[in-house]
């Protein structure tokens, strides 16, 4: 094991896969010599050359659609969109082409494409550069959507995504780039669509994604001092969604809080709440609670942005209220 930042883990995943497979390449705006808007591709062009790691014009439709074209014809592109919000620019290419090309053409193709997209609130990037678009992609049958919360998961999930024959949107949270954590040495793969229990507990289950995993762990620590044992589950993605792990946990604890940065409507938390309502209602000792971002476009001011994102305090209160129900 060695300590590594989330950003470096993503960089390492790309380097290892570029090294392993000559059909893997990286393209995006500023990913070449500049090393990426957030420095995530730093050193890759120097090491692998400009054939394998290269800059593109500001052309999100080409980035995603060109990635599909290359994936259909024998390559494994890793496309970096500068911000996850730009998925909206390339929505036809992602939602209609990457996700559906295989299905609508009778299974004659695979689409081994990875789209890396930095998401989330990070110090006032504003309403068009801070969103978590998991909910937007929830209905994209044919697509996999993964969301690492730790450096080890970022490394292992990205390597699995590159090796997958399915199109994968890899949503890396900008607010986690500097987060450090233990990462296994050598080959480390994390399977797509398998949740991870980040902390075991018997009283309340919190299902959380990306930054909210860490908020949930902080809440669990506070509640542990009061004798309340919180279980924190990170689904590590929304599609496929590991409902078995969630249901198993809820059947034990009887209480569920679901939390993400994005607002409630159309979000992954609603999907989890619905699944639990359908398949585990009889185990619930209290109503399911969603603790999510405010239902507004994110404000530009970093000071105001904080009020739009769920806090540790809100999670603590939510868990207490379920125990007091």
């Amino acid at each position: 094991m060695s300590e590594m930042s989330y950003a470096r883990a993503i960089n390492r995943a790309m380097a290892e896969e570029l090294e392993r497979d000559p059909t893997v390449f990286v393209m995006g705006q500023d990913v070449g010599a500049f090393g990426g808007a957030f420095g995530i591709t730093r050193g890759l062009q120097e090491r692998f050359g400009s054939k394998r790691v290269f800059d593109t014009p500001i052309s999100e439709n080409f980035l995603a659609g060109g990635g599909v074209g290359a994936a259909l014809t024998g390559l494994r592109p890793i496309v970096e969109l500068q911000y996850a919000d730009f998925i909206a620019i390339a929505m036809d290419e992602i939602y209609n082409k990457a996700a559906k090309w295989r299905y609508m053409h009778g299974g004659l193709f695979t689409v081994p494409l990875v789209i890396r997209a930095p998401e989330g609130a990070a110090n006032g990037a504003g309403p068009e550069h801070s969103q978590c678009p998991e909910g937007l992609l929830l209905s994209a049958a044919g697509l996999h959507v993964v969301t690492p919360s730790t450096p080890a998961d970022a490394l292992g999930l990205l390597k699995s995504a590159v090796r997958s024959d399915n199109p994968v949107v890899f949503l890396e949270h900008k607010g986690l780039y500097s987060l450090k954590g233990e990462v296994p040495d050598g080959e480390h793969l994390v399977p797509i669509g398998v949740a991870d229990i980040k902390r075991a507990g018997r009283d309340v289950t919190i299902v959380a994604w990306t930054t909210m995993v860490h908020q949930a762990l902080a809440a669990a620590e506070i509640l542990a001092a009061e004798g309340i044992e919180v279980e924190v589950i990170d689904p590590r993605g929304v599609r496929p969604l590991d409902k078995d792990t969630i249901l198993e946990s809820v059947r034990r604890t009887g209480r569920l809080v679901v939390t993400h940065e994005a607002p409630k409507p159309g979000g992954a938390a609603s999907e989890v709440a619905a699944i639990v309502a359908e398949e585990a209602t009889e185990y619930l000792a209290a109503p399911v609670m969603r603790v999510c971002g405010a239902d507004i476009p994110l404000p530009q001011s970093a000071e105001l942005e904080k009020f739009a994102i769920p806090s540790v305090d809100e999670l603590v209160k939510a868990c207490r209220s379920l125990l007091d129900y």
Partner: protein
Amino acid sequence: MTSPEKQQELYREMLRVAYWEQRLLRFIEEGRTSGFYHAGRGQEATAVGATKALRTDDYLLYDHRGLGHAIAKGVPIDRLFGDFLGTSEGTTGGLGAGLVHIAWPEVGVLGQSGTLGGAFPIAAGAGLSARYRETDQVVLCFFGEGASNRGTFHEAANVAALWKLPVIWLCANNGYSVSVPVAKSLSVPQVADRASAYGMPGTVVDGMDPDAVYEAVTVAVQRARAGEGPSLIEAMTYRFRGHYEGDPQTYRTKEELAFWEGKDPLISYPRRLIEEGVASLEWVEAMQAEVLDEVEQAAQRALKGVKPDPSRIFQHVYA
């Protein structure tokens, strides 16, 4: 110059395309398949002339107008019928492709984007892939003058020219995007006028003449294989039927239609081949009979196909 052998091949292929569609329209009239079909009658010279300039391993992204390009590229015609009949004999294994989602990777047919202009970025990506893999494959991307107004064309045309990707942008300009005439949708007289803005050659050709289209695309293919980059070819053509089956066609005159029907490649081209001594009347008639028979046999084979089990809808969502 198109060789006499190639001219005979082009005529035979146009017959296959036209007879195939004629047979399909009978299936539609008989209610065996939906009328979700955008007939290609009239545009055979463009579809066939361009596609026949390719090798088997070159890539094709076709557009929604007829299936001349897919047929000329080598998709088995019985399987195409199967797609319309919704049987497991179709290229999509009974999913029912209709016009839109037919593919046949072994002859380079990469499929079609159901959203107009969705193929542009994919074509550029396939061109990038050919170059990355150090092959000399090229990509032929069909679109109408209407789809040329999509922003995706700008992004794809820019990168293709910037990186000298082996792509041929083939615009079949048939004068109308559904009901809107080209003069009301295009900022310049010709789509090919836009080529210079991307630093690639732009050529306007007679889309009713298969030789003219074949020769223009052959030049573009050579240029692409040589690493000199993309070309834009605009073939001036016309659709003889409506945008869809049942289209009232209130937007055009009978006189205009008659003018273009006078250029019908299925009439003018064999006449020319006979006049030029490339083919005899007997050869033309024999070819018509042979192709008609081939198409009917394919239709009969397709009619024997079976409809898929309902579980088919859950296959191939993921690899």
